[in-house]
């Protein structure tokens, strides 16, 4: 980790700029995390008002992405960073795209929650989905923590978590399908539940993407489209 020290530039302003974009990415991550949390809460309690809040707040996430993106472009143009600084800027640009997508998925979950409010007993169906949501939320949290500390070990751990999420996703879908077969009246609700599950699974993928960028940022190695056992040693 020692090969990546941001605070070693002669220009203090440059350091501050790099530190700033890092902080802003993490702030954006915090907002996305909150959005995800509230969307899941809205789904769990079928709370329409909370869901509307999430939908309204998605604008903020988008605005943050745009402004961080611009900031990164400015740094690239003005400072022409090299080595680890360049990797930082590149990782940031990629990370915010994924964060924004996670925000979109959270918004989708919230939208589903608003439309599910009117179905009686829909809440009971969601206990497992909510559990999966919690798991994915800890993944996002972990990925952001790894980004804060530039901790590849943690990143690898979060990254490998995605396999479990995928497996759980598949079994959930299978279960929902049996519900559909048992009771055709429930199909409209279950279809919505499925799309929520899909959204959650996507969030897991995004979180593991962020972990890949962290590994790239710290080690300078690209681990995308590879398997976990190849990096177990970090």
């Amino acid at each position: 980790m020692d090969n990546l020290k941001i605070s070693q530039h002669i220009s203090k302003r440059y350091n501050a700029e790099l530190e700033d974009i890092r902080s802003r990415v993490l702030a954006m991550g915090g907002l996305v995390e909150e959005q995800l949390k509230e969307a899941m809460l809205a789904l769990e309690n079928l709370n329409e008002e909370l869901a509307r809040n999430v939908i309204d707040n998605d604008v903020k996430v988008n605005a943050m992405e745009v402004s961080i993106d611009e900031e990164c472009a400015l740094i690239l143009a003005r400072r022409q960073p090299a080595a680890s600084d360049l990797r930082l800027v590149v990782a940031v640009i990629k990370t915010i795209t994924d964060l924004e997508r996670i925000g979109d998925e959270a918004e989708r979950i919230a939208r589903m929650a608003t439309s599910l409010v009117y179905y009686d007993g829909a809440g009971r169906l969601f206990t497992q989905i909510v559990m999966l949501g919690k798991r994915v939320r800890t993944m996002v949290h972990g990925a952001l923590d790894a980004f804060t500390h530039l901790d590849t070990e943690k990143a690898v751990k979060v990254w490998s978590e995605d396999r479990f999420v995928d497996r759980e996703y598949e079994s959930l879908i299978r279960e929902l399908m049996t519900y559909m077969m048992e009771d055709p009246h429930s199909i409209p609700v279950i279809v919505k539940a499925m799309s929520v599950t899909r959204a959650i699974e996507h969030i897991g993928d995004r979180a593991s993407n962020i972990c890949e960028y962290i590994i790239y940022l710290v080690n300078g190695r690209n681990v995308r489209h590879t398997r976990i056992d190849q990096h177990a040693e970090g």
Partner: protein
Amino acid sequence: MSKPWRNELQRIVALLLTGILVGAIAGNIVIGLLMFITAYLCWHLYNVYRLVGWLREGKKFRLAETGSIWDDVFEHIYRLQQRNRKRKRNLRRLLKRFHKMTVALPDAIVELAPGSDEIEWWNDAAARFLGFTYPRDSGQRISNLLRSPAFLEYLHQQENYEQGIEMPSPVDEELTLRIRVIPYSGNRRLLVARDMTRMQRLERTRQDFVANVSHELRSPLTVISGYLETLLDAQGFGEEYASQLRSMQKQTERMNRIVDDLMLLSRLETEIPQADPEPVLVYGLIDSIVSQARELSGVEEHVIELDVDSGLCLKGRESELYSAFSNLVFNAVRYTAAGGLITIRWKASDGEAVFSVEDSGVGIASHQIPRLTERFYRVDNGRSRSTGGTGLGLAIVKHVLLRHEGWLEIESELDNGSEFRCHFPPGRCSTRINRSVGVGGLSQADAGLTAELK
């Protein structure tokens, strides 16, 4: 002159005399003098050498006495040295004690570097509650570790740290922390986090209890009041029983109202306020409240005056605002003698919107004003019950205002009437819309009102 100096002077004189004497015997006074002066100088140099060596060695031991002014010098340095050592020891002990104290504190304390968000120091509780680990997080910006948007907003607003915020701990969702930032010594900041989990759980239990109890009370009450009504309609009783039944019915109605108010209150406490509320035309609300108030006033015929800006709207939930405003107006009717004057105002002043109800009633003693918004607080036990209040009205007003970012101001004097003012921030007032709405309706409906419309 002190003793060592006198000794030294005597020694110099003696040496000089000996020098001159030896020189005179040898035949050259100058040579003799020079010899002795050189010897004297060497002796001094030797002492300086000893002093330097002693200082370098660490000054642990005392230097041997020489019986000259050097003893004085050695003694003073030694004493200074001892004093410093003692002071340092005390300081170290104090620091250790202080450190132990902060470790023992149940609250998390984090010190931020001057003028930035970087973490400089934290205590053990901070490691526990906020998950900071040494040395990884030293120098890290706190905003990178605590990323909740509400916290970031609070941290970066720079001016109003007093209130603090509540948020779940980043380590454990179940842990609720109350975080406060305290600026000190120029541009430094201290962050204090307290574990509020127990308090919050207690509060939630209380809220659930009230909500459940009022819900459970409701159905038996409905049954009782239904039967009472049938019994009263049956007319098979003598006048004696009928009056008792009527009084029973009155009491059940009162109980019903209390249960309703309790349920409203628990809803106000637990529900999340609307994110983007619609503007409510307060004028319309006041209109219907006034007609109800006249009904309540009945034969007592209070004079109700209006001073209302008909176009001024308030963003919020209509039903909540209605209960708050109506509670204030009905209170005014209840506590004002027959024929008394009640003035209702709804205006914008200094950007904020103010709804106020002024009456010429009994007034409230100043020491009771702070407790007025407590549940079931009664200024005068006998009276309010006979006038049909539930004891929850002002608590409801307070909660509704809280949800609309407003605050309640109460001005009153015993026997001299009172004024209740609800202040709403500028962000809550909205531009005036169609002014003619409802204006005609009011003036026709109630000729006794003087509505000043602008």
